[in-house]
């Protein structure tokens, strides 16, 4: 799935995203980076058709994404929170999203179990979300997003609530799943280390109102440690710029 973001901007009371443009080839693992409050999540929501853009447009394989969700392509979203239905087992949670695709009950069940297996939740299919750990819930949310075999998988700081150890495990899992399924992924994170560890394309946004500050191919040709250093420098510059642009104390 080829993703093109064309001059997308968003104003709330103030302009949050000025104009962001970039293009991604099918099968890329894109990481969106930037200082806090620069509109990473908003941009992701616009790409997923969850929110309309004030300016510009998003194209999936040449088709515009609309905020009413009527676009043709399948988009899976993993939110910051797991957003599982607490009254359904993990299996039913995953199977539920296959209903609109017209899959029969037996097929839904089998597919749900297959993807739960894929994210390492084999044996936990019959558990309610409240009975498993936060990391496992987030995995179930990922299984749900993968189960619809999305053309595009959007992930919004999916590991933000996890501890360092679980985070590392989940990063490896997502990277493995990406390799095995070949999906196009757009992944929002505020962790530069995380982005460098898992992304193939890094999009660094500037301070608010944001633009693309740098588009970096992370193909292993640049040494990782140096990349992390460079990105850290960039983000510090942007944070300073944002603070400089912020209105000063009331006299």
């Amino acid at each position, binding site marked *: 799935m080829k993703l093109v973001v064309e001059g997308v901007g968003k104003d709330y009371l103030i302009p949050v995203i000025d104009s962001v443009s970039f293009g991604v080839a099918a099968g890329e693992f894109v990481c969106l980076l930037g200082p806090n409050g620069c509109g990473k999540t908003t941009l992701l929501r616009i790409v997923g058709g*969850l929110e309309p853009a004030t300016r510009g447009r998003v194209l999936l394989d040449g088709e515009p994404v609309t905020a009413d969700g009527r676009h043709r392509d399948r988009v899976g979203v993993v*939110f910051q929170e797991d957003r599982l239905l607490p009254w*359904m087992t993990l299996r039913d949670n995953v199977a*539920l*999203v296959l209903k*609109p695709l017209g899959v029969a009950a037996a097929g839904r069940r089998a597919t749900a179990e297959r993807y739960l297996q894929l994210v390492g939740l084999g044996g936990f299919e019959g558990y309610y979300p*409240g009975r498993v750990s936060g990391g496992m819930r987030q995995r179930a949310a990922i299984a*749900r997003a993968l189960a619809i075999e999305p053309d595009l998988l959007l992930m919004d700081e999916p590991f933000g609530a996890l501890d360092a150890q679980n985070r590392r495990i989940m990063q490896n899992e997502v990277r493995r799943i990406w390799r095995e399924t070949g999906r196009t992924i757009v992944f929002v994170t505020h962790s530069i280390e995380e982005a460098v560890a898992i992304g193939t394309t890094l999009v660094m946004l500037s301070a608010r109102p944001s633009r693309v500050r740098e588009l970096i191919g992370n193909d292993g040709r640049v040494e990782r440690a140096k990349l992390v250093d460079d990105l850290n420098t960039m983000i510090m510059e942007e944070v300073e710029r944002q603070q400089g642009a912020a209105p000063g104390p009331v006299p």
Partner: protein
Amino acid sequence: MGPPVSHRWAARLHLPTLAVAVALLAVWTLLSWRYGAYVLPSPLEVVRGLGEVVRTGEVWRHTGASLARILVGFGGAVVVAVLLGLAAFVSPVGRGIVHDLVAVLNATSVFVWIVISIIWFGLSNWAPIFTTFMITLPVVGANIVEGVENVDRRLLEMGDVYRLDGRQKFAAIVVPSTLPYLLAGMKVGFGLALKVSVVAEIFGVTSGIGYIMNYSREILATQMVFVWALVMILVMTLADRLVFEVIARRLARWR
């Protein structure tokens, strides 16, 4: 799971409460000696009276009649409340109307409905039924509307992402998150229904707990007034334990 059986019994009996109950019974007995059975029958007479109505089967006849009226009036209120909740879910305008309607009904006295229902339905079964319906509707309705308003928007957005249609979102997200509110409303509503329908039964019907209580008073059988009050308490407690608690436990099995 839970504590061992012996502990549970101790907790349920709760000795201090038991002590207070024994003290009250003693005071009750003393007072009944002092003032006589017409004003205050003794606990023993009340127990004997209860045995009597159970033996003759009168207890089933009147409790059954009251429960049947409650079933129609309160059941109707639950059905209408669910429809109101549906209206509140599908349209913001509907939500506003239901809100105001519930507020007005909540502010209306039981007696208003009793009098009006006697005017409209005469001395018939429909008077207590209608009164019960009008009094419990706002209680159940308010709970359902609150439940509908508290449905997690983030879960609905998840439903949109995965393109669940309205019916699928309703069944998978709205109904399960509203059910606890509905149950809470029904629990309060049922208690209210029992209290209200009994009052309405004083007028014009010839069966039911309210009727027989009033009749007992007229024939100066004060101990029977106490007996029927006891029956009401038992019905309420049993409904709580056997119906509402069981449903609540079933609903909460995922917690």
